């Protein structure tokens, strides 16, 4: 009986303490006049029941990344040319190189990136929960994602459109030929919604076969589960290279939607957004000024054009304004390269995943890439 009494009194005491701090926890941000005893209890509770909350607020992300010593980047691991794990376990691709550029801008070392493969379905939750610092995973910019998914699209790094791939011997040349057919598509993508939209608009009936990730979508297509497979054209080009016989499949000459792809950050940290955005612009600008990883040292020591000097950190304090080292853009170009270099390395004519630059050329070449002035 004595034991029970002790047990009960301890329970009551614990619950009272918890209740006390429960009352003060939400208001503790405002009032600094709480009694010391209560404050120590708050610390105990937060440490005993940790719930991960994404770092938000101006400057918090950069601070977290610097304190951690590396950048955690959410990437694709299944689309060659954009985000892919090669046989040696190394990540490569266009979106992956963007992460390296961002790390170069922050740390002056492009290798300080931890790549975390995320599926289309889990990517936004991973970003919201703070599991990743930035999402660079061929993600389409759309209104809902900008608002309800609490993200900010940094900038379009790749202008894409949705396409359709069919077996070459199927004789299918247009969407109408697919009437009554089955189409493989990946869940949680804008592609899935566009497909429903376009087919409804054209009045074509079809059956979707929807899969969890790119690998299972294309595995099912390869097994002839569907008459066609749809995703972004870049995705089709890149996935075709890993099919058993790439020449047995054709990509139809139809563009079903606009797919502006780019990196995405969380709401709430404008500094982080600026850093991510200017990393993109630095790569555009470098191409425009003809600065490459090979000649950047030469140019840095001999340049006279003020804008080039500002970009490379010889003049002014552009990097400091972003909260970075003044050599931020120099590091990006030196360690990763300008936009054209990154593009050619992953999607250029010498790669199996060749995609003509098209809209993804500088505005001076009739494309859409245009960097605001560095000043």
């Amino acid at each position, binding site marked *: *009986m004595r034991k*029970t*009494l002790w*047990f*009960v009194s301890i*329970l*009551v005491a*614990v*619950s009272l303490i*918890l*209740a006390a701090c*429960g009352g003060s926890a*939400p208001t503790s941000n405002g009032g600094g006049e709480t009694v010391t005893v209560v404050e120590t209890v708050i610390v105990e*509770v937060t440490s005993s*029941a940790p*719930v*991960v*909350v*994404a770092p*938000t607020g101006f400057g918090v992300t950069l601070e977290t990344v610097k304190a951690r010593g590396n950048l955690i980047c959410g990437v694709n691991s299944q689309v060659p040319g954009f985000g892919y794990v090669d046989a040696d376990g190394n990540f490569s691709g266009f979106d992956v190189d963007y992460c390296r550029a961002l790390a170069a801008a922050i740390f002056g070392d492009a290798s300080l990136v931890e790549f975390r493969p995320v599926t*289309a*379905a889990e990517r*936004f*939750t991973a970003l*919201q929960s703070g599991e990743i610092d930035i999402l660079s995973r061929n993600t389409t910019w759309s209104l*809902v*994602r900008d608002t*309800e*998914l*609490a993200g900010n699209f940094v900038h379009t790094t790749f202008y894409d459109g949705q396409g359709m791939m069919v077996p070459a011997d199927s004789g299918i040349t247009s969407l109408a030929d697919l009437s*009554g*057919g*089955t189409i493989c598509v990946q*869940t*949680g*993508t804008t592609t*899935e*919604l566009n*497909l*429903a*939209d376009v*087919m*409804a608009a054209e009045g074509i009936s*079809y*059956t*979707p*076969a*929807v*899969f*969890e990730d790119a690998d*299972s979508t294309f*595995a*099912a297509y390869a*097994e*002839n*589960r569907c*008459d066609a497979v749809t995703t972004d054209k870049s995705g089709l080009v890149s996935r075709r290279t890993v099919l058993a016989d790439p020449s047995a499949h054709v990509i139809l000459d139809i563009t079903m939607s606009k797919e502006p792809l780019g990196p995405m950050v*969380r*709401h*709430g940290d404008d500094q982080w957004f600026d850093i991510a955005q200017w990393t993109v612009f630095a790569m555009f600008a470098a191409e425009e000024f003809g600065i490459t990883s090979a000649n950047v040292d030469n140019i840095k020591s001999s340049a006279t054009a003020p804008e080039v000097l500002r970009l490379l950190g010889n003049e002014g304090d552009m990097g400091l304004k972003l909260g970075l080292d003044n050599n931020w853009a120099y590091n990006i170009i030196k360690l990763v390269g300008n936009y054209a270099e990154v593009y050619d390395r992953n999607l250029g004519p010498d790669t199996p995943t060749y995609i003509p630059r098209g809209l993804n050329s500088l505005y001076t070449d009739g494309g859409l890439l245009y960097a605001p002035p560095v000043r």
Partner: protein
Amino acid sequence: MQESLKQKRITAFWRDERILNILGQVAFILILLFIASLIFQNMRDGLARQGIILSYSFLSGISGFDISESLIEYSRTSSYWQAYQVGLLNTLSVSIVGVIASTIFGVILGVARLSTNFLINRLAAFYLELIRNLSLLVFLIFWYLGVFLKLPRVRDAVVWPGDIFLTNRGVGIPWGLPTDSYPTFRLILLIGIVLSFIVFFALRAYSNRTGQAPLTTLWTLLTFIITAIIGWLVLPERPLTFDIPAVEGLNISGGKVLSPEFMALTSGLVLYTSAFIGEVVRSGILSVSKGQVEASHALGLNSFQTLRLIVFPQALRVIIPPLTSQYLNLIKNSSLAIAVGYPDVFYISNTIQNQTGRAVEMISMVMLTYLIFSLITSLFMNWYNQRIKLVER
């Protein structure tokens, strides 16, 4: 009376064990509730900081995506809630088909495992050991990628007797289409059910009066089947016409086409769960002591009667509780549908979560859904268990 009670109390309430016990439990629940609310509060604050507010109102929005198979009317303009219902019904259909088929198959396996025939016994043992030691996910992917997607293309469809079309777009089976006389036929079926009930109660009354044990279940079923057959033959027009599947263009038309995803999921779940049910059945039958069988033979009952009247009723008491948990496993395991692309409730909720970003809401809905499914199943099984269990005096 009240007065005397009050005076009798000599121990103070904080020394009264009964009160302390209750107090302890109340305090424990309070702490539990408090911790739960703390966690919930923390999550809500964290979400609010990112401008996300918990709400289920998004469910009435337009879903915008298509679903491959649905038992109800659904299109891209339907709401998220309707999409969720589609998933709910798909989960239910897989669960119901799965539970029935795996019970039948499991009982056969369990009995085969106890067979005195060496070959049957060894084969059943090999099967049980093989299947029970596989991972279900691997098993499902094997059935999907290794079996159903490896079937020939539609234009080279394999046709099994009974007009069953096997293709990698699905398995086409003949399917009854109701004709004008179908409503009348339904009425006849209803009469059949009433008749079989009458037979059931009459036979039970007879058994209670005379102490004989007639084959109640068999006669009840036969009554229903005979009524149905008579109805089928008597009606001027057949109540159902059989729609035979045929190859047409890219697809199979007519009949009922079961998608490879559905086939892979149900066959995987059924074969997997039936291996466990087989073991449950075997343990149930073995739990009936040999003396019972010998006594029954001594009383002059034959082998079939012994099995039906002595062994099986006693085995059932041992079988039901673990069988319940196998049913629950099957229902919960059906969420692995996502691996083979079958649109069950978990799959659909994943899609909704993706398109809306409402992770907390969708996960909580799915958890609640599976909880309700499982609770209903166990309530029913507990009720059945209560009914058949040994009455102790």
